[in-house]
């Protein structure tokens, strides 16, 4: 059963969303989806970049002005 996990990184400064994403993703199983909520313009670029580099499926959605949800499906 693949599950969805939310990771709230709103208001976090630069590297923190990515560091938290790495840790959270490590705990998930194949097929699970991590949904990272960010409002940092750096994070909406470097988190997907990191996830794609590690082979996961990624999609970003702009939720509202200045806020994104990054969907990472662990592969």
């Amino acid at each position, binding site marked *: 059963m693949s599950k969805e996990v939310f990771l709230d990184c709103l208001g976090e400064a630069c*590297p923190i969303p990515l*560091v938290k994403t790495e840790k959270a993703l490590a705990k998930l199983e194949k097929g699970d989806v991590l949904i990272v909520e960010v409002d940092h313009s750096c994070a909406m670029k470097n988190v997907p970049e*990191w996830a794609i580099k590690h082979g996961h499926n990624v999609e970003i959605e702009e939720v509202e*002005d200045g806020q994104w*949800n990054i969907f990472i499906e662990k592969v």
Partner: protein
Amino acid sequence: MTEKSIISKVSTSRSSGKKKSKINQIPIGLLVLAIMIGIGFWLNTKSSNLVLFWVTGLAFGFILQRSRFCFTASLRDPYLTGSTSLTKAVLIAFALTSIGFAAIQYGTGVEPYIAPLSLATCIGAFMFGIGMVVAGGCASGTLMRVGEGFFMNMIALIFFIVGSLIGAYHTGFWDYNFRVNAPQISLYSGALGILGGVIANLAIIAVVYVIAHKWGNRKKND
């Protein structure tokens, strides 16, 4: 390895939520543009030099934000996340700018100010390195993020100013104990000549680039 691919299995109530009108800030942006132009005209009544600085500042701010360029990340990410994409971008900027600056030095025959090299350079750089990572942005990054609305970086800016003032107060100490008689070494103004110097600079950049590229391709735990 797939690039971005659509996740069809995800069905969260959040993802189906409509984003609030995406363009409601553009009018405000245009208002800011009008203010930018207005300030430009006003500055022009004082001096065209001020307009120049204003416009280049606007350009730097716009470019930094649009490309999410971050010097802090270029030096922090290789260690913290293994990513060197910004490191390489920064190196490319160094290379292009070096070529331009060398050409200008050649064309004008004027040497730019070369800051002295001393232990103070090392100490100051080390302090700055710690500070920029902890604060979540370097000098340019802090200004950029103030413009983006980050309260944390506004606090960092205030304390950057405070730190600068204290540092200014101690200028004599650092000058006297470290900088007096310190050498000023420019690759472009030495035995290599300008051409040799810029080639040397580019060579260093190239070596670091290759190292950064290889480091970035390492995948931890894979």
